[in-house]
């Protein structure tokens, strides 16, 4: 993705923004960290073979509704796709990506 460094003006604006928000709460960071680690675990698991939501959930010992939500986020933003059904459940598999640039092109 074509990104450019922040200008000084933008940095100042961000600092002001952060101040107005009263700083970025620990909770927000924890949420993001949780999302990143859980999705990495899901990716690692799906790298082996496509799986259903209950399968992923029991392998990672996380609640199924949470896993479903994460997988749907990954699907929306192009990391995961459906890979057929297994019983009353859909299976999900990884989309292999070459470059980061493709990320997000859904």
């Amino acid at each position, binding site marked *: 993705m074509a990104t450019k460094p922040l200008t000084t003006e933008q940095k100042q604006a961000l600092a002001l923004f952060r101040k107005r928000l009263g700083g970025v709460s620990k909770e927000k960071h924890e949420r993001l960290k949780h999302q990143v680690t859980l999705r990495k675990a899901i990716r690692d698991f799906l790298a082996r073979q496509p799986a259903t*939501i209950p399968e992923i959930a029991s392998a990672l010992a996380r609640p199924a509704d949470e896993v479903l939500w994460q997988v*749907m986020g990954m699907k929306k933003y192009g990391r995961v796709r459906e890979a057929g059904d297994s019983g009353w459940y859909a299976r999900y598999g990884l989309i292999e990506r070459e470059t980061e640039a493709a990320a997000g092109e859904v």
Partner: protein
Amino acid sequence: MIALKTLNRRTDALVVGGGIAGLQAALDLADQGFKALIVERQPSIGGHMIALSKVFPTLDCASCITTPKMSAAVHHPKIELLVNTEVQSLESTGAGQRATVTRQPTYVDNDKCIGCRLCEYACEVEYPDPFEQGLGALRAIAIPFANAIPQVAVLNPAYCTTCGLCARACPTGAIDYTQEAVTFTIDAGAVILATGFSLNSLNLKPQFHAAQSRNIISPLTMERLLAPHAPYGRVLRPSDGKIPQSIAFIHCAGSRDQTLGVPYCSRVCCMYFIKQAMLLSGALPLADLTLYYIDIRAFGKGYEQFYQNARAMGINFVRGKVLRIEPLADGDLLVHVEATEAAEHCYRKVRHDLVVLAQGMVPPSGGPALVPVRRATDGFFDLPEATDPSGTNLPGVFAAGTAAGPKDIVDTITDAGAAAMAAGRYLQRRRRENSAPVGEAGTRRRVHLEPTMDAVGAN
């Protein structure tokens, strides 16, 4: 869209709410030459209708018939649109109505944003997508949904970690972290209140145990599951992604119930449940679909036929109000019902994968402290005159669509047209009165109604 030059402004007609009622009223007024200003508190116009899957009884795709109205409104030379802006209060001045509004910051300069979504792709933080009733994920900066109008990004400060990735990705420098909420006033000759409705809580009846199960869902959630851009891409239940094989629809779960303070009928739930069941029988041909109802209210043109078609399709209709739902360990739900028309085994406990509750339609929460406008006992705007079905207790203030009570889309649009007509007539009468020689009272101030008279004459 008209550029925001100064913040305080005046217009002929202020339309509060950009749902289908507000859009229709604004279009009807603008087509008659009046200047209309739509104030919508969400980032996009379209209201509830843009989130629906298909609409009864025609089964037209909802977004296919809403989007043209949305873009017609936004491109109309006589319509100005303010999104992310909420009407806080309304007062009558001698010259008309003055609304005080607040615009929330979106941290994106709408004039610069080209809707390319590069910021969205750059952002890492995801949260439950409000447009998808929390089912899907949305990034902290994103275009609110696929056919949102305007197509500009919105940053949600509740989730943003201020990492700056969006600013680095935006090709036009539209990200503006310095935005703040602003309050300003709008002077209008007439006001149309099209603030719509909201649904009452799923948790009102503790015996439903909705708080304990993700598989007891709102009908709006079901609309999203069935929508063309469905959050899951297909119909799955939220607890574990199972393809549901047995779905229950509980009618009147939040209406016609004095214990909830909602004694009236919400009017649309019977029909949208029938519609949803029909759509589901296409999406899940093997699924068992059961509607638990008190009586089916299929009141509109073609609705009874729609209902009969659903029966003929093999959808189950069981007469009986459900008042107890037991969540089971595997995510299924046990629905208790007295099948009031059954000769035997009238008390039934039926297992379902997914349960949809027909929540009651109630006035929208929060926001509008539209103080001087009287509410009826049901909480919706009061329409005191039977012969003036859009007029509120304040002269020059009209109500349209579901803001005045539960309605379907057809009735909402008819109603909005009527409100626009009433507002137009009111504006013209004021104009005539004000251009008459100052005399009698002497205190009357002129209503400033910009160029519209000529336009009316020209039409």
